C-alpha cells in the first residue's frame, strides 16, 4: 500500500453501456491501437476479444499479453479483490480500462478507480443510437439503462451508420432531456481515436487549433495571469459541452503546481509532483472537443474573466 501510494496514480477508465452498444468493438480497438501505452484492459467477456494471433505474446486462459505490452484479463468475481495487483505489474502499466457488464451501473464499477494507486479518469458510456430509446422505454430494464446514462462523464454515440442523421439529432436532444448536458460525441465509423477517451498525451504535439482525427479539434490554452485553484476549478466547470477532454499543468496561486484532468463532466485537480512543474504564473491546458468547438480565443477570454 505504501509503495503503491508513493507511485504515480494510474488512470482508471470505465467503459459502460447496454448490451450491443459497441463496448467490445471499442475494447478490441484499444488493444490494437494503444499508441505505445501499456494498457490493462479488464473485459466482461474474454470470448469476445478478437486479437490477431501474431499480436499475442502470451495467452494463459485468463490473461492475454500482447506484443505491444498491453494485457487483457477478465472480469471475474476475483476481479475486484485482484484489481490492486495490476499496480504491481512489471513493467508498470500506464492505464486501466474496465469494461462494465451490459446491465451493470458503470458508476459503481468506477468506484474501484478511487482506490489507492488509481486515479478515476472517467466513466465513458456508449450509446447505440438505434436501440437506446427502446431500451430506455422498456418497463423492466429501462430504469437501469437510464441510470447508465446518468452515471456517464462522457457519452459516445455508436452505430451512427444504421440510422438517418435527423434520427441522431433526435437522440441527442432526447439525451439532453433525460440526463441533462452531458458531453456527447460521435464514434466514427472507423473507430474512436483512443486519445479522445484517454487524454491528449499523444496528440499534444500536433498543431494547436488544428483538426485532429475524425473531426475532433484540439486547442492549447495558457493562463494570462496567476489563478487560484478554486478559480481554475470554476473555469473547468464552465467549459462548453462540446469539450470532451482536457489535460494540463498549471501553477496556482494557493496550491502551487497542479495537474488538471477533465473527462466530459468529471474534472480532477491534483498536485503536480513531476520533476519540472510549470513556474509560478504559468501553465498549459490542452483541450479536445468536437468539431463545433471554437479556437483558442474563446477559452482565453473565459480564463481572463476569472483572474
Amino acid at each position, binding site marked *: 500500500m505504501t509503495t503503491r501510494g508513493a507511485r504515480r496514480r494510474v488512470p482508471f477508465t470505465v467503459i459502460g453501456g447496454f*448490451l450491443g452498444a459497441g463496448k467490445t468493438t471499442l475494447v478490441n480497438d484499444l488493444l490494437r491501437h494503444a499508441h505505445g501505452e501499456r494498457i490493462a484492459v479488464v473485459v466482461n467477456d474474454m*470470448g469476445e476479444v478478437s486479437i490477431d494471433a501474431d499480436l499475442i505474446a502470451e495467452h494463459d486462459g*485468463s490473461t492475454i499479453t500482447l506484443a505491444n505490452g498491453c494485457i487483457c484479463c477478465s472480469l471475474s468475481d476475483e476481479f475486484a*479483490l485482484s484489481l*490492486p495487483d495490476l499496480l504491481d505489474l512489471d513493467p508498470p502499466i500506464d492505464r486501466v480500462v474496465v469494461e462494465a457488464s*451490459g*446491465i451493470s451501473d458503470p458508476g459503481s464499477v468506477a*468506484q474501484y478507480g478511487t*482506490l489507492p494507486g488509481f486515479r478515476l479518469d472517467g466513466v465513458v458510456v456508449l450509446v447505440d443510437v438505434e436501440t437506446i430509446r427502446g431500451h430506455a422505454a422498456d418497463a*423492466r430494464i429501462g430504469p437501469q439503462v437510464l441510470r447508465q446514462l446518468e452515471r456517464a462523464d462522457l457519452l459516445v454515440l455508436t452505430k451512427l451508420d444504421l440510422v438517418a442523421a435527423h434520427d441522431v439529432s433526435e437522440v441527442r436532444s432526447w439525451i439532453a432531456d433525460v440526463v441533462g448536458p452531458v458531453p456527447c460525441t460521435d464514434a466514427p465509423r472507423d473507430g474512436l481515436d483512443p486519445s479522445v477517451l484517454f487524454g491528449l498525451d499523444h496528440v499534444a504535439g500536433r498543431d494547436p487549433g488544428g483538426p485532429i482525427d475524425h473531426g475532433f479539434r484540439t486547442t492549447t490554452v495558457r493562463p494570462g495571469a496567476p489563478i487560484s485553484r478554486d478559480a481554475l476549478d470554476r473555469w473547468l466547470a464552465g467549459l462548453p459541452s462540446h469539450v470532451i477532454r482536457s489535460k494540463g499543468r498549471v501553477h496556482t496561486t494557493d496550491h502551487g503546481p497542479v495537474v488538471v484532468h477533465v473527462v466530459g463532466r468529471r474534472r480532477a485537480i491534483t498536485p503536480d509532483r513531476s520533476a519540472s512543474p510549470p513556474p509560478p504564473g504559468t501553465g498549459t491546458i490542452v483541450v479536445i472537443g468536437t468539431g463545433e468547438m471554437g479556437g483558442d480565443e474563446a477559452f482565453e477570454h473565459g480564463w481572463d474573466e476569472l483572474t
Partner: protein
Amino acid sequence: MAANITIHSAREIVTMNPSNPSASHVAVRDGRILGVGPLDELTIWGDHTLDHTFADHVLVPGMIEAHAHLLEGALWAFPYVGYFPRRDPSGQWQGGLTTIEELVDHLAVLDASLSDPDQALFCWGLDPIYFDGDRLTARHLDRASSTRQIVVFHASLHLATVNTACLEAGAIADAETEGVVRDEHGRPTGELQEVPAMMLAPPMTPALKSLRNDQSYWTLARLAVNAGVTTVTDLASQALFNQGAADASARIVNDPAYPLRFVPYCTPSFGPTVQDDDAVAARFHELAATNTDKLHYGGIKLIADGSIQGYTAVMNWPGYVTGAPQGLWQVPPDRLDHMVRTYHEAGINVHIHANGDAVIDAAIDAVDRALRTHAWLDHRHTVQHCQLTSAAQYRRMARLGMCGNLFANHLWFWGDQHYASTVGPERAHRLEAAATAKREGVRFSLHSDAAVTPLGQLHTMWCAVNRLTPSGRVLGEHERISAYDALHAVTVGAAYQLHLDHVLGSIEVGKHADFTVLEENPLTVHPIAIRDIGVWGTVLGGVPRPAGSDPIGPTSR
C-alpha cells in the same frame, strides 16, 4: 457369499418411501441400501453384522441442502459476532450479541485474546437491522480497541463497519469512494458500503482473499455432519472457468475421508466468457463427465436479481412499501431467455436465483419459451429462493415442470422486517409459500442459503412448519406445512430438483446409504421442538460420521 453386509437397528427408520414408510432395520452393502424392513426380512441377503449403534436413534434419509455456498465453511476462519446464536464448527454457540454494548464487550475480549498488536481483528455476521436505535459506528468499536484495526463484516456481505484505527490506517477520510458513509461534518462514520469502499479498509482484501482455500471444504463438512446434512450444493461454483476450483473439489470431495456429497452448480458470470452460452454448456459437460458418487456437477446457476431486504429484488406492482425503486436486474430478461434456452437445449438443469415476483415471471417465461422449441419435459429447472412467488406463478411452474427451492429461513431471520418495511403484511404472509407450492403441484425444497443463514435442515424445516418470527408473530399461518412435507422437501424434494432422486432422498433399496441420525422423530415431536432435536451425526455411503468438535481433515498420504 461375501459378508460385508451391515444391518443397522434403529428405534425407528423414517424412510420417506410411501410404500414402506417406517421400519426397524436397514441393511447396507457396498455403501448402498440393500433392504429396509424388520430384521427377519433382511437376513435373506445372507451373512451380516448386526449393528446396534443406532438402537436408540431415529434414522431419516440423509438431509440435502439444495442451496448453500462453500463460503459457509470459509467464514469460520474468523470470529462470528451476529445477533442470532450460531454453532461454530466445534459445536459451540457463538454470537447472540443483541445490543451494541454486548458486541463491543465481546470485541474487547477478542482483542485481548490476540497477542500480536499489529494483527487486525476481522469478524463477521453482524446485521445492524436488529439493533434498535443507533447505527453501529467507529466510535462504538473504538471502545473495544483504539489501536488495533477492527473490521466487522456484515451478514449481508455488502457492508462493513470499522474502527478509527482502521479508518486512519486506510486514510479513509480522504477517499473519494462512494459508499464511505459520512456524518454531517463529512467525517467517516466507520460504515463502508459495497466492495470498493470496504476495500479501503486495509484488513479487508487479505481477509476476503483468504476465504478461498481447502480448509473451507473441511470446515463445511464438519458443520454439515453436526447439523445432520449429507449432501450440500455449492450454488455459485466457479469451477467452469477456474481450474483451481475444479481441482480442489475433485481432490477433496473424492477423498474417502470427506463426509459429504457435494453438488456444484456453476455460475457463468464468474467466467471469462459470459456471452458465449454454447461455450459454457460445452465446458459444463466436460465437468459433468468427471462426476462421481460424491462430486456431482448438477447444472448451471443463473442470478437474475438481488434480495428483498436489500431492495434489489425486482418487484411487480405495487413494489416495496417504502416506495424504493423496483430493484435491479442482474441479467437483462432477453439474455436470461437466451441462456435458459441454450442450457435447456444442451440438457443442462438450470437453477435461477429469483426473489422478486417480476424476475420470477421472467424465469418462468424463459423456461416456457425454451419448452416451445425444445421438448425436454424432465428438465426440473428450478426457481431458487422463490420468495415472492404467487399462486398463479406456482400454477405455471407446475404446468411447465419447474421446481421451487424456498428460502424458508427468511421467515425467522427477516420475517419481522419483511412485514414492517419491505413488502408489507399481506405479501410477507405469503413469503416462502410452501403450502401454495404443494397445493398447486410444484415439487419444492427448503434452504438456508448458508452462509447467509446457518446450515441446518432441522432449523429450516422448523421455519416452514411454524413460520414464527423473533417477535412472536406467525407469518402466514395458511402457508404452514406439515413436518412430513417439510422433511419431504429437504430429502426427496431436494434430490428431485438436483436430478438425484434415483439415488438419494429416501431410505429404500438401491439408493446410497445416507442417513441423518437423530435423537427424536421430527414427524412426531411437537412442531415447535423440531429445531431442537439432537443430531448424533450422519451415515454417508454406509459409513457412520458422528457429530463432534474435532476438525475433519484429509486422508494422510
